[in-house]
């Protein structure tokens, strides 16, 4: 689907239900079941595990050829019963797959029947999400699930002073940092979903089938009474916005921002929190910003004028592009397997000050990215592990960021957001470029 081609060569996105699996993983005591053939669950489990290096349980209704023809209602009901029996979740997400979307199974209806026959299951919040992979990608599935969670669970009530934060798909380290920021402001924030512990846990005394952590069910219910919501979804269409849904349903004021990656977007984020909460930016974070400025000055001689091709999920790539522009690297090629109007217009804003406008590729694949990067003569790539082949072909370094990173360790612990995140990215970026230059030296090692 890239360029003039109808086929996709080396895709730059994963399928929609995978995003649902990630999002539900950030809800406390939850499980997810994919309604479809078991292959989809198996593939997604292995993929998510390869990045996070954590156990990832995803159930399946394991449809067979018979149910593929006559519908999967019976398999789905049995699947739900067995998962609840084995895992005792409080929340159970049910995401559809290409197969069950093609058959046209009505999951709401099937679950309705099941709850009638098995009243005990009503203890569990069962949340269906429609995630056909033949439209959209994993990032859509992630947002779909947040919207489904809110539309099912959020309740109204007298306005409190809580804050809702919808971060989108960031790393567990990012979520931990965002918590620190909100704590620093003295705000009581609910982060939905919160994968900070569930996808980056430690070794503990006793193994738990559903890992500890995640947004508590009660906290999700309370989102309707919050003072305001923030959502990092500037590159996402409004219909996929949980914050907007809360605004419509319960009049919770909503502000949609780009993910706070790089100094410009972090400024917008800290500014927004400070303004809405009526509290100054805590000293601790102001100091981080000072140090970041210092580091940017130090690094500039290595970065200035370098050209990068950057790719990944729309919201994440928007942030990375802005970060690159902040530090003097030209995001010459900006690419995503998704895209859309919001993505493009935000990028144009972010890059308005650049002399040569970037080439923006939406709904693209690595075949296309490779061509564009070669034509534009980039100095490095920034994005997931999946660009490693292009990097080798072009003989430029690849700075790994995003999902999936499966050929390096620590993708789940990478910090991107806030001033601290910008600092971490800056060091990584600069060192990647220095290492590349050192490797190319014809005369041995040198200070650079």
């Amino acid at each position, binding site marked *: 689907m890239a360029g003039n081609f109808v086929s996709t060569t*080396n895709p730059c996105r994963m399928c929609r239900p995978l995003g649902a699996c990630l999002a539900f993983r950030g809800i406390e005591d939850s499980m997810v079941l994919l309604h479809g053939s078991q292959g989809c669950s198996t*593939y997604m489990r292995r993929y998510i595990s390869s990045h996070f290096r954590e156990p990832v349980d995803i159930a399946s209704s394991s449809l067979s050829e018979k149910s593929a023809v006559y519908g999967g209602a019976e398999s789905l009901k049995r699947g739900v019963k067995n998962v609840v*029996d084995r895992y005792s979740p409080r929340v159970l997400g049910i995401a559809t797959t290409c197969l069950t979307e093609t058959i046209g199974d009505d999951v709401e209806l099937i679950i309705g029947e099941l709850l009638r026959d098995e009243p005990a299951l009503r203890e569990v919040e069962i949340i269906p999400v429609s995630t056909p992979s033949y439209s959209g990608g994993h990032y859509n599935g992630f947002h779909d699930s947040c919207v489904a969670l809110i539309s099912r669970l959020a309740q109204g009530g007298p306005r409190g002073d809580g804050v809702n934060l919808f971060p989108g798909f960031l790393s567990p380290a990012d979520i931990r940092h965002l918590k620190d920021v909100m704590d620093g402001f003295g705000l009581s924030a609910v982060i939905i979903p919160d994968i900070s512990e569930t996808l980056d846990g430690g070794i503990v005394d006793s193994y738990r089938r559903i890992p500890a952590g995640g947004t508590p069910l009660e906290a999700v219910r309370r989102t309707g009474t919050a003072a305001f919501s923030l959502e990092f979804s500037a590159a996402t269409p409004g219909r996929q916005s949980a914050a907007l849904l809360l605004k419509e349903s319960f009049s919770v004021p909503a502000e949609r921002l780009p993910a706070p990656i790089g100094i410009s977007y972090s400024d917008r984020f800290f500014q927004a929190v400070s303004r809405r909460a009526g509290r100054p930016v805590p000293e601790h974070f102001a100091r981080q910003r000072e140090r970041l400025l210092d580091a940017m000055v130090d690094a500039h001689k290595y970065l200035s004028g370098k050209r990068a091709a950057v790719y990944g999920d729309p919201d994440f790539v928007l942030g990375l592009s802005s970060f690159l522009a902040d530090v003097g690297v030209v995001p010459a090629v900006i690419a995503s397997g998704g895209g859309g109007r919001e993505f493009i217009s935000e990028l144009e804003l972010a890059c308005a000050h650049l002399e040569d406008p970037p080439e923006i590729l939406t709904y693209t694949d690595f075949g296309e990215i490779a061509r564009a990067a070669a034509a534009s003569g980039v100095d490095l790539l920034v994005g997931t592990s999946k660009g490693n082949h292009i990097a080798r072909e072009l003989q430029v370094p690849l700075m790994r960021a995003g999902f999936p990173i499966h050929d390096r360790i620590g993708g789940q612990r990478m910090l991107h957001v806030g001033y601290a995140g910008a600092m971490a990215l800056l060091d990584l970026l600069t060192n990647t470029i220095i290492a590349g230059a050192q490797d190319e030296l014809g005369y041995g090692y040198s200070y650079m």
Partner: protein
Amino acid sequence: MPSSEKKIEKHRQLRDSIIDSYPAKVGKRRSRHLVVKGEGDEQVEANAKTIPGIITTRGCAFAGCKGVVLGPIKDAVNLVHGPVGCSYYSWLTRRNFARPGESGKNYLQYCVTTDMQEGDIVFGGEKKLMQAIREVKEALDPEAIIVSATCPVGLIGDDIASVAREAEAELGVKVFSANCEGYKGVSQSVGHHIACNALMENVVGSEEPEETTPFDVNIFGEYNIGGDLWNITPLLEKIGYRVLSTYTGDASIHDLARAPRAKLNVLMCHRSINYAAQMFWDRYQLPWLKVNYVGVDETARSLREMARFFEDDGLMARTEEVIAEELERVRSQLDHYRGRLAGRRVMLFVGGSRAHHFQHLCEDLGMEVVLAGYEFAHRDDYEGRQVLSGMSRSSLSKVVQDISYELESGFEPAFSEEELGRKGAALEGSLLDYEGMNAHMKEGALIVDDLNHHETEVLVRELRPDVFCSGIKDKYVVEKMGVPSRQLHSYDYSGPYTGFEGALTFARDMEMAVYTPTTRFMAPPWKKEAPDGDA
């Protein structure tokens, strides 16, 4: 009670407690998949449908067909007809290595898909598929294009076989297809069968080798994961064999086409490729011999059996020389590792053949296998091929057709019936047969088919193995429980593990797992009972 009986009893009790923890119906079904060696009735129910909602490690027909068997063919492009995910997730994930061959072509780095969109689902995807095939031909110019179907394709009724035929006529490149929709069958296993059929019908026998040698062999069921094949081929070549083709690690489509002219098929993974082996036997009277190049003793045994098949004195002598040389090379290091690993206990849950293959290697190192099981095997992989005659053709036959071939007319088999009879006798029944995994297992060991998450957890907790060998989906669960785990699908990005050299690599990795320094730090000092004393 002798110790083996005690162990049998203990493991029976453990098994029964797992079964009792299930709802009655599920428990009854699972009880037929958990067996204790030595308890009498060791029939293992295998290849049964997975229970919805019970988390399994199994994949789908597409994974078995495209992912396992067809994917490694290096100079063909695998074009996946379906939505984006299935293709993405099978992109290089199996670590099949390949070097470009004569044609200089290697497409394993590519993941090409029709990336079906809503419109294709509603109005059909045949036109898009046709166009995608043209694009592949134009952009990549491979030696063949293989179209695999994913779940939605069968439902919307796209006729991929006729699109492939049309494309082949139009483009002048070999194009064929496999209807391996993921919902078919109960696991990836049915996909292996579909792939074998596709190769037999479209590729095998369509080309002739430039020349033949008296010792031409094909290596079947070896996918060159982590470079396994590249430890085997040099050994065989040193002895005097020529490897005509490999099914399908590092394979060229042309070599696969020329394979019928070999004299012997040696079979590594019985599960995935036995269909093709059987069809080669029927169609070309080309016999197969089950070998195992995992483990030092097993590699030596396999090489000796091959030599015995060829009844050639020179070959036998070379075989002994090479074995002696190799053993000499690895002996001292092997002794070192044996000293470090002897008595350690392992669980092996992997694949459809590896749980058997790796038992030998573990035993070479003095380790004890307390549990072994397969993810997607059939009864014959456990109990041996003699069960096949007694088994009714299960519902599988509706999913995938068994092609039965007659001896191809005009084809001159390499050996006469009489010669083959003599060779079979010399090999004492191992030609054209596989005795299965169970025969090899020790009394009291557990045999578990399609081990699920819940059972993994209970068994690891109760039996506390020193290493748990499985795949990525189990690895992190087990490690959270404080037991080291090695992946035997991807080799944890290590390997190769075959042959004499590979045994050392495996031994090193096992040692690494058992002696990880992290274990020393599990309990923080403030949680240890007595204070350290140096305060």
